[in-house]
């Protein structure tokens, strides 16, 4: 644990949504949650839909409500006065790869826009180098989202996030909309970027197999609360909370290697440093 070099610090965060509809009561989406992500660390948050994962993610990204508590990213508190450069410290990867890109904007124009807004942070890399980092070739630069596969679109999203040199990547179900084989490739890419770019990742998912494969630590959420947390292997091998046990029992057929496990294996086989040749374009 690298307590002193925390990239993300969530301190007793609660998110209460106002009542919707006439009979509704206020909904406590996130209830007194604390968690931290150290540099280069991948921390998982698992839970069913409705467990408050998304509200947590939105609050952390500075896009959602923070009712009480504090969220700090690289020493800056997330809140109303969230400066443009502080905002860049945390970038998001979302579930729907095509929906994450403006349907009318080519990759090149999108990157140019980001460079215009964050000129001070984005000079470190050319468009071509950036795409190479996520395993894409430069001929994708002039394509529109609908001219790409899901995996390519998700890689473009990752490249866009990477361009701003964030210290934390918030990945909200980054692979659940993808084909099984593509899932493994994206997970492998995230692991590789952690190694090469020192990226810390808050990984939100309902897919326990995926979380087990990529996360160093895991937090299990139930109805807005973290019911269990710890080092991934320990939580998965010796679940303390009944709910975690139920979640684990629900993982389907574990006799064949899941995509996540494939990714895990491939990750181990990646050479320690230096640039790999780009992952084959899908």
């Amino acid at each position: 644990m690298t307590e002193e070099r925390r990239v993300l610090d969530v301190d007793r965060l609660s998110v209460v949504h106002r009542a919707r509809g006439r009979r509704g009561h206020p909904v406590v989406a996130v209830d007194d949650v604390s968690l931290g992500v150290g540099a280069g660390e991948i921390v998982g948050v698992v839970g069913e839909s409705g467990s408050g994962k998304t509200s947590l993610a939105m609050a952390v990204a500075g896009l959602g409500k923070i009712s009480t508590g504090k969220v700090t990213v690289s020493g800056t508190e997330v809140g109303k006065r969230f400066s443009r450069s502080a905002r860049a410290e945390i970038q998001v990867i979302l579930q729907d790869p095509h929906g994450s890109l403006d349907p009318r904007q080519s990759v090149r124009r999108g990157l140019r826009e980001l460079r215009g807004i964050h000129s001070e942070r984005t000079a470190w890399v050319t468009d071509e180098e950036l795409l190479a980092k996520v395993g894409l070739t430069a001929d994708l630069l002039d394509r529109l989202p609908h001219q790409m596969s899901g995996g390519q679109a998700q890689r473009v999203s990752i490249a866009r996030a990477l361009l701003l040199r964030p210290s934390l990547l918030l990945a909200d179900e980054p692979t659940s909309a993808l084909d099984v084989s593509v899932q493994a490739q994206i997970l492998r890419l995230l692991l590789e970027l952690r190694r090469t770019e020192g990226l810390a990742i808050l990984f939100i998912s309902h897919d326990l197999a995926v979380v087990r494969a990529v996360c160093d630590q895991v937090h299990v959420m139930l109805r807005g609360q973290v019911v269990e947390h710890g080092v991934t292997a320990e939580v998965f091998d010796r679940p303390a909370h009944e709910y975690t046990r139920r979640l684990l029992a629900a993982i389907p057929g574990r006799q064949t290697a899941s995509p996540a496990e494939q990714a895990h294996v491939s990750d181990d086989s990646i050479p320690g440093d230096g640039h790999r040749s780009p992952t084959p374009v899908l």
Partner: protein
Amino acid sequence: MTTINTIQKSPRPVRKPPAVRARGTGSVLAFGLPLAVIGLICLAAPLLPLPDPALQTLGDALQPPVWMDGGNWSHPLGTDHLGRDVLSRIVHGGQLTFVIAIVGMLAGAIPGTLAGLVSGFYRGAADAVISRFVEAQLALPFILLAIAIIASRGRSLAVLILVLALIGWAQYARVVRAETLSLRERPFVLGLRCAGVPTLRILLRHMLPNLAGTVLVLTTLQIGTVILAESALSFLGLGVVSPQISWGAMLADGRDQLSHAWWVAAFPGLAITIVVLLVNLLGDAMRSWLDPKKRRY
């Protein structure tokens, strides 16, 4: 059946290959081209070898079209009660009809689109106020409202455009609002905000281009509505007045001659019908061209 449904509902978004977009171009051209030709003919009216549309030759009054007994080629579609050439008046009247349609459409489209954009994007109080005004506008019977305005302000082109803008804007605001509401929930908007892209830029450079297709379709269909509205007002004597000519105004003239000279009223109405039909067909074709999934009957 059940299995097919399950497969279709898998989370992987099915994207259409680019080739599909080309489908429908044919029908867009098939309706757009004749419309463009009609528009050009009307705009080029002064250059065409047509008699002066205002020239009164009482001796030639109420001549029937060329294919009827007593008709001749000097007035292919006949003459009205003042001996004016019907064909020439239709072509010249088309000028004003088209200009009013386009200006009236724009006068509604621009404020309507902006109102819908603001309403759908910011929601909250702005949305509540704008939505209430949209509903109020839609609750006012259009022709009655037009009558009320024109009766107290008198007839002029400016008032006519104002009235036509009033029928249009609420439609745009409603449709654009709905589209914006769903668009702003799309993940890419979250991504842009997270990347620190200023809100105004998101609105103008990301939302607006994505709404362009919808607005374009609506604009096309709205031209038809505006032409119909203008002709109705002019027919009631509330729109274009002599010596200016529009198709609706010609119809009003023709109504009095209906029992003995049907052609005076029939042809301008036919012109309106053809143009509006083409505009509606073009709008439908554009809708399916821009997004085959949204294709409606």
